[in-house]
């Protein structure tokens, strides 16, 4: 049993944290996260050069990591600065492509950005309800349907789209230029896209892809949960700092027990969150990955809401402002719950497991 990071992962974590702290000061983050293309392409390149994406894939697929713990380290660092770079799309794409023989060099080096389109407006989480249809057309295929809230879709060169092929789930590659892609900023910063396809040309990547897509979703959930842990820890530290500095009634508000106990409850839930992320990371490549990822997403959804709402409440009015960094952390933490299945959805998945 060992709960320390290996030396390699500690180095990766340290260098990412240094880079992100340096390049993503919060005012820069707030600026790029809300203006087109809703991330910083120059920093994307540098992040990729540091190996942040190579770390998400195993060696035999061209990366240098790819385990649950590698994914967790990278996304926790991203969460600490609420980084809006579309790394989630790269992760989910490499998870799907790793079920094929595709060369992933362009994806892992960051020169090609990919986004994965799963959810639809009437089925945001449920893979079995996907309605987008693939049709054979000459040597290739065409897709018809609409993918909603495709994270990073606004900045992607390629879209990996899940669609029904003869009643079964398959994954296709669509050139972003061939589809009707409408990008937009999200409430918590960073970009997404609505992707509308009508007889849009597509290349079959993987047939019978249900397991591969579930694997990509599991990895994505682990990534989001790790990101949430990073963001929650920073927001909690900000809150505790504020409790020490802010004076009312002639003393720091952190001397009031009513607030102390709530700050402790946040700590408790963050520690529980870190624990369930560790568990999900350790199970990511095992037979029960779906169950443990569902558990993680359920717990993080609850903990995240507590941490974000309590942080805002205990800060008071200042956390209601755009100017205060904590408000942006709170938004990101809350909205993570809406990605790849929220806390209630995953509770039902735990019940079904």
């Amino acid at each position, binding site marked *: 049993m060992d709960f320390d990071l290996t030396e390699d992962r500690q180095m990766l974590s340290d260098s990412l944290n240094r880079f992100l702290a340096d390049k993503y000061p919060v005012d820069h983050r707030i600026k790029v996260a809300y203006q087109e293309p809703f991330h910083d392409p120059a920093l994307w390149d540098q992040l990729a050069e540091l190996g942040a994406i190579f770390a998400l894939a195993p060696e035999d697929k061209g990366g240098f990591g790819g385990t649950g713990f590698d994914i967790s380290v990278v996304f926790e660092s991203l969460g600490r600065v609420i980084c809006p770079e579309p790394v989630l799309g790269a992760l989910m794409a490499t998870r799907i492509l790793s079920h094929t023989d595709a060369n992933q060099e362009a994806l892992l080096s960051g020169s090609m950005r990919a986004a994965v389109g799963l959810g639809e407006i009437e089925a945001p989480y449920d893979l079995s309800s996907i309605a987008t249809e693939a049709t054979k057309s000459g040597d290739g295929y065409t897709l018809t349907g609409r993918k909603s809230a495709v994270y990073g879709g606004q900045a992607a060169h390629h879209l990996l789209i899940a669609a029904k092929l003869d009643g079964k789930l398959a994954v296709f590659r669509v050139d972003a230029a061939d589809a009707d892609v409408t990008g937009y900023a999200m409430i918590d910063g960073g970009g997404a896209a609505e992707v509308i396809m009508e007889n849009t040309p597509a290349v079959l990547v993987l047939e019978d892809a249900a397991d591969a897509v579930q694997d990509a979703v599991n990895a994505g959930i682990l990534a989001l949960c790790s990101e949430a842990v990073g963001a929650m820890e920073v927001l909690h530290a900000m809150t505790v700092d504020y409790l020490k500095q802010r004076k009312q009634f002639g003393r720091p508000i952190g001397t009031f027990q009513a607030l102390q106990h709530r700050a402790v409850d946040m700590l408790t839930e963050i520690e529980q969150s870190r624990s369930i992320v*560790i568990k999900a990371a350790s199970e990511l490549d095992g037979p029960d990955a779906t169950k443990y990822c569902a558990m993680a997403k359920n717990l993080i959804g609850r903990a995240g809401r507590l941490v974000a709402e309590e942080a805002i409440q205990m800060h008071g009015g200042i956390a209601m402002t755009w100017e205060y960094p904590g408000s942006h952390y709170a938004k990101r933490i809350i909205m993570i719950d809406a990605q790849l299945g929220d806390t209630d959805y995953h509770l039902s998945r735990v019940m079904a497991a």
Partner: protein
Amino acid sequence: MDLTFTKEEQAFREEVRTFFKENLPEDISSAVKAGSELTKDIMERYHAILAKKGWLAVTWPKEYGGPGWTPVERHIFDEESCKFYAPRIVPFGLAMLGPVLQKFGSQEQKDYYLPRIMSGEDWWCQGYSEPGAGSDLASLKTRAVRDGDEWVINGQKTWTTLGQHADKIFCLCRTDPDVKQQEGISFILVDLDTPGIEMRPIKLIEGGHEVNEVFFTDVRVPYKNLVGKENQGWTIAKYLLTHERTGIAGVGFSMLALEEVKALARKVMRNGKPLLEDPLFAARIAQVEVDLEAMKITNLRMLFKAQKQGAPGPETSILKIKGTVINQELKDLARRALGPSAAPFPGAITEGNLALAPENHANNAARYFNNRKTSIFGGSNEIQRNILSKAVLEL
């Protein structure tokens, strides 16, 4: 990161399993399973079985006759003992006083008391809380005044768990009323046979007798019964409280309780389906299952840290808070699963009608009420929050 146990630890787990399989009498495990009050005979027989194997004083180092286990090995032992429905080891002599004497006791005290704790010759109980000193323990008033070679003790202790079985009590007494509260307390050993001591049972909410109040009227004990230095008692009390905090999460008990609730909910029907398939009930079970799964890892993380640093830190208070909340939720579910069939008063449950409810759960309501104690004793969950606020968040 590596969540697996070493080969040695896995082999140890097998050894513990085999031991329980071969040595734990059926009447003991079924008494634990039934959740009824354990008799003194059962606890003493269980202790003797462990002592014979050298596994009784689990926290003691080898030099004092303990097994010399690491925190992880202790965790494995706890987990397996739960699975086999073994009783909890009565902690007062073994887990509390023993380590205190090893750290603060005189050679004479160690030589005399430690073997008697191990052999079961002395049954110790704890004289900490008082009617006016619960969470604010340092405000305790029981007075010990030196008179030549003796202490004269006057006052009252309460919540003395299993005092009805005990021969001796270790007490925190005020020995200097004129200094800061924490600096005027001493740790004194008292023989319960001494004239002037009266122990009265306290009947608990569910009707059980676990705790007692103890009255001291001009009780004279030898001066040499002082442990450590005069007025060092608060330091000793804190050492005792923080010394053995692994296992505080009760993960093993909760894992068992979860399995029991599920088993029960498979048998009980609601709306034509097993209760376990009822969405509202199943959602509550799933939620606590998620929390418990995280708790297991939180517990292991803190064990790992304790093993690395040599001692558990203040963050173990998280285990107490979350662990008790999880366990109490499970007790609530177990009570609800049976509805009115969980309601019999324990005194009304006899061998003959235990089968009133499946799997001997007729006392689930009683267990629910009894279990409310866990978030109160050993430092209430509010006190744990104070500790975390001060020691971890530095508020």
